[in-house]
């Protein structure tokens, strides 16, 4: 199946089940969770279902376009369902069937995999979804985002687009995947992932491993942080301030890929990103619902 067909099917499937179809956020980020549609959407009490594709950058995973499995940038398909529906696993399974996976012939398992993003002050519990031995999705019940308890809890489903495509087509090289077909008066031209992305992988890998100006990035990190706090403190603007936190996070990833961050420095730097992100989350909730923290109830109060 072509990459674009997979994305279209997922969008159709989730739109039909009451999700808004969102768009990627136009800033560099490491995962779809960082998109404000998820980061802020998972907070507060309002119902919120959204699905979107997010190109995700992981500078340390860059392999110059030479490794058949690993890339600097990959596509995540992200679904947020708030509150998590009682039949959320069944919904997810139906979405696989919508991709043409006949589960009566495959082995599908949900294996424990808890998710944590220290730079977003977020964590959840859940599984990696394993199809015939291959991890194809991440399934998380958010417990906290931006340091705040999620009440109600959202379910987050993240599909690894390229992986699923490779797996379904039996491809041994990510760059051989077909993105789609260009049809012109002159004929039909299939376009591969490699044609679209391999040069980009090469340049972005070279950038993060060789050419990125480390001093500039250190300066940028400080500047984004200062800018973020100024926006939040002087103006109460949590959305523009959150963008600064995203920029800090990516700047850190570039430095990290170069080995420019020592293990002792690491937690301190991540904490600086987290502090700003958490402050944005708190400001968002105050703005939206007039409370900083959802009312805490007895943890075990549900049993009767």
């Amino acid at each position: 199946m072509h990459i674009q067909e997979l994305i279209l099917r997922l969008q159709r499937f989730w739109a039909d089940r009451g999700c808004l179809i969102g768009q990627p956020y136009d800033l560099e980020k490491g995962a779809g969770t960082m998109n404000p549609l998820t980061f802020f959407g998972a907070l507060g009490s309002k119902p919120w279902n959204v699905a979107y594709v997010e190109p995700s950058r992981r500078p340390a995973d860059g392999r110059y376009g030479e490794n058949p499995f690993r890339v600097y940038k990959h596509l995540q398909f992200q679904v947020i369902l708030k509150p998590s529906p009682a039949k959320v696993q069944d919904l997810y399974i139906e979405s696989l069937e919508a991709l043409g996976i006949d589960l009566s012939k495959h082995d599908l398992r949900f294996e424990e995999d808890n998710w944590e993003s220290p730079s977003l002050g977020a964590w959840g519990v859940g599984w990696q979804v394993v199809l015939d031995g291959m991890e194809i999705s991440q399934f998380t019940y958010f417990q906290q985002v931006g340091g705040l308890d999620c009440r109600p809890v959202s379910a987050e489903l993240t599909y690894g687009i390229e992986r699923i495509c490779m797996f379904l087509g039996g491809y041994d090289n990510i760059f051989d995947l077909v993105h789609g077909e260009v049809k012109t008066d002159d004929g039909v031209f299939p376009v591969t992932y490699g044609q679209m992305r391999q040069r980009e992988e090469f340049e972005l890998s070279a950038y993060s491993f060789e050419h990125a100006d480390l001093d500039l990035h250190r300066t940028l990190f400080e500047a984004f942080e200062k800018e973020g706090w100024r926006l939040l403190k002087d103006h109460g603007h949590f959305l523009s301030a959150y963008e600064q936190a995203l920029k800090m996070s990516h700047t850190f990833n570039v430095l990290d890929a170069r080995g420019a961050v020592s293990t002792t420095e690491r937690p301190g730097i991540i904490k600086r990103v987290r502090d700003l992100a958490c402050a944005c989350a708190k400001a968002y909730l105050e703005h939206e619902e007039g409370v900083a923290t959802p009312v805490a109830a007895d943890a075990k109060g549900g049993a009767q």
Partner: protein
Amino acid sequence: MSATQTFLLELHCEEIPARFLDPLTRDFSAAFTTWANGQGLAVTNLEAFYSPRKLAWRGAGLPASQPNQIETQVGPPQRMCVDEAGKPTIQGEKFAEKWGVPFSAVRFEQPAGKKEPCAVVTLTKQGRPTAELLQEALPGLIASLHVPKAMRWGHSQFEFVRPIRNILCLFGEQVVPITVDGVTATNTTWGHRLFHRQHSEPIRIATPAAYEAALEAAGVVVSLEARRTRIAQQLDQLAAEVGGRVVADAELLDTLAEIVEFPKIVRGDFPAAFLELPKEVLVTSLREHQKSFCIEKLDGTDLLPFFLTAANRVDDPAGFVKAGNEWVLKARLYDARFFFAEDRKHPLSDRLEKLQALTFQRELGSYHAKTGRVVALVKTLATRLSQDEAHVNRALEAARMAKCDLRTLMVGEFPELQGIMGGEYLKHEGAHEEVWKAVKEHYRPIGADDAIPGTALGCLLSLCDKLDTVVGCFAVGLIPSGSKDPLALRRAGQGIVRILWDQGWPLTPADLIQASLNTVGAKATKPTAETTEALLAFFRDRVAYQLEMAGYAGSVRRSALATGWADLADLKARCEALSAFAEDARFASLAQSAKRIGNILKDEMPGDAFDAAVLQDASETALAERLETLEATDRQVTLLTALADLAQPLEAFFNAVMVKCEDPALRAARLSLLHRLRQAFLRVADFSLWQ
């Protein structure tokens, strides 16, 4: 009394992490049993079941109702409850009122422990129906289960390991309709996901006894044991089909049994070219990444290019499960081969300097510093154990290289291959066999079930590495206490003792502590005397545990350990010798006499010499005669035989003689005789601790 009933509870959840299944079922079983006993409801045979989506318990033998409970309440003395005219006093009436009975129901008896007759009432507390008690208690018992990583879901305020989606709860054939977080129990549950693709209705469980069979029909084998047995059978059969045998791994077998509801083992293959990777790398990569078993040749040497993994279904009709796992595995093995090739581009020794950037422990410094200390320790001990200079040099070489693999890509990916990779890389570089083998095995024994290194050099390196860890940590105040031992120092200490025990080297724990403290030097933050004392106590506990593990009887362990443990070879010899007499009745008598001797000598300070001529009784001269042979005997077994033979004469002596008699000369001689006998005993064991 009506017939007993069986209780069944099943929590059907979204996939529960495998590691929590066993603890959760155990915890609930314990809590349920405690509760039931407290209610006077004895449960016979409480069984627990679990699968990835189910936690279930079935308890037989519960009565339909609680037995009636008869209680006796004792009140004030009779004289205060009844006046002289025989009428009830105000106090008497209040007592009856308190227990809700008319005064006529109050009796006057003298209960045990009271000096006079008191007011007594007997109350019968009507037993309640068991189903009603279950209904009340179960939600609380479920809610109070301790879940280490609990979660909330949807709007729930309830926390549990994973969302509860269905509850089945029966008492006999009757539903106990408990409600937990909005889910109310019924007599139905759900089978395997694949089963319900064809069957939209839930499964009805008519009686608790029908539980396993009904679920099996719906594609779920709910007993862990049954799943494990079926997996083990398939593993063996599929390995035999390709002329090999499974590389055993009990933990992996448990894992596979825990992650599937219906166990189907699939055999896949991988390109034979990957067999150039070390066996340990393949086994680890397959286990860690794909939860797969390897197949080895029947002689246990090389691997065959096959793997075995579990699928959560009955069959693999289209071969998708096999193909998918093969595809993933190939990608993983490409990675492993990449690491193996990259790591060998530079000699292992290149990593020595890079160990400076790797912290071992904050106060004790880097792995580079640790390597320096271990090299120094190996030098001290190797020169004591061997005159062969070449051997000593090889020991030093192994010590220098031991930690280098911590900076290789492969160990970065698979930390459990530490040591093993260092050994493999050295082997490829053409290092001496003694050296690479020592490096490869120097983390062993990894646990109580693991063997110690197979070579003397490996044992020495392992001992020095562990010794540095234990002594170093004690010297900076990191001492295990109670259940807290985050650095696994007890395990390391046990490894040291096992190696000494096995190798029989003439090194005492005190020597080792001293040598290691010298190398730790100024890094120590605690006074040396304090550290040494703590370490001696620590090692004594490890030695005591070693004796237990070696299987000696309690009598042997107690009495042998009490007379010294510095020389482990000697301790071992004494334990061996004593064990031959563990069931000997004469030793029981000897123990009695030894205790008596101990008591008699408690406040005495007798000299060694005595005049045998002073002794009068035949029983005491007989003892004195034996004393000399006893003292001259060196071999443990002969000595013990001699001691056993002494049991009867000693008994005779204590029957015939009063040791502390009036005659000062005779008394002194008898005390000296006993003192010297005791000294002879203590060469082997403190028999006063025999029983």
